[in-house]
């Protein structure tokens, strides 16, 4: 499955547009990460715990995006965009969407 945030793929033609597909994932941090983040607030540095959390979340969202595209029979997803939003205290939603297409 080709995932791209370009409009067109040079050298390949879009045969058919199959509509919008989306993948989303909401993950919560846990107390351990929280405590580490609290300490980092004093000492500074990268919040590795949160970075990992968001990375896992994004991977899962991308996986779901792919599943949706496969379900509609596409072989590529173009014009992919990400959106991160804070839903509630301590939970962030990663949302990715794009157009499912069939390339020749």
């Amino acid at each position, binding site marked *: 499955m080709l995932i791209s945030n370009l409009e067109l793929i040079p050298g390949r033609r879009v045969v058919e*547009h199959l509509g919008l597909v989306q993948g989303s994932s909401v993950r919560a941090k846990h107390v351990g990460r929280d405590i580490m983040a609290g300490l980092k607030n004093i000492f500074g540095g990268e919040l590795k715990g949160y970075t990992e959390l968001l990375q896992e979340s994004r991977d899962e969202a991308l996986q779901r995006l792919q599943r949706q595209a496969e379900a509609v029979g596409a072989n590529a997803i173009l014009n992919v965009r990400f959106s991160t939003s804070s839903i509630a205290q301590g939970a962030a939603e990663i949302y990715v969407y794009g157009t499912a297409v069939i390339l020749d």
Partner: protein
Amino acid sequence: MKYRNPRIPEGINVSDRHPLKELLVLAGGALLLLVLLSWLLGQFGGRLARLLPFEHEAALAPVSLLSSDAGPELQAYLDQLGGRLGSQMAMPEGMEVRLHVSGGDTFNAFATLGGNILLYRGLLEALPHENALAMLLAHEMAHVEHRDPIVGIGQGAAIQLVLGLLVGDPNLAVLGSAGLYTQLHYTREMEREADTEALTAVQGMYGHIAGARDLFDVIHMQRERSGREEMPAIFSSHPLDEQRLEAISALARERGWSETGEATPLPAAFRRWLSEAAARAAEARAMPGLATSPSSRVGRLHRG
């Protein structure tokens, strides 16, 4: 360029975990974790608190709440009784017990920091004979000997502190009860041990524990009279009255103590002393600027 809109199947962006099952697993896990953590913290806090030397406790005692409405005769009588009981218990060096009487009609007695014990007239009035009074005194003195007041504060503080940090989310406030439950558990343990120690002292002094049970009967009757149902054991800080009586009988059987015997009567002037204390307390209340009779919880609150 064709544009189609095929139907996307459900369930890709939603997990199919049943919400109730998830709630059970998460809530159950959280409660278990919190109870265990509170227990651990209680141990830690208690041990830390015990390190505070007894002499310094006196500085922390809530002096303003300890009224002394007892006249010289009542105070002397209580002190000699306390002294005789103290010689039966293994009081460590430097531990001094100070008995105070409040003329208020609250039905209670408690031991607090610095070896201070406060007895309310309301409870003293209801005691039928000296053995019951001795049991009451011995129980409170046992709390002092075990350093229950300061240990209780240490446990409570440790539990509240860390639970507050961890469970900071106000949505989860209901889980704070887990910490409370653990605190109650510790309190009940303390009461049981105080009972055992007190019984031993009473047995040593009188040669039998006949009057000891009467103390609990008196308390039980008062509870019934005041109409308050005994809460289920889980929520009450004291072992249920029946459980206490059973524990006493079991201990007596184990150590071969006699549960029957003559109860030593209270001195004839006891009632008079108590009404004098009541009058003194009423005077103190009437005079502006003086502290009114204590009614708030301080440190550990023990129902005789």
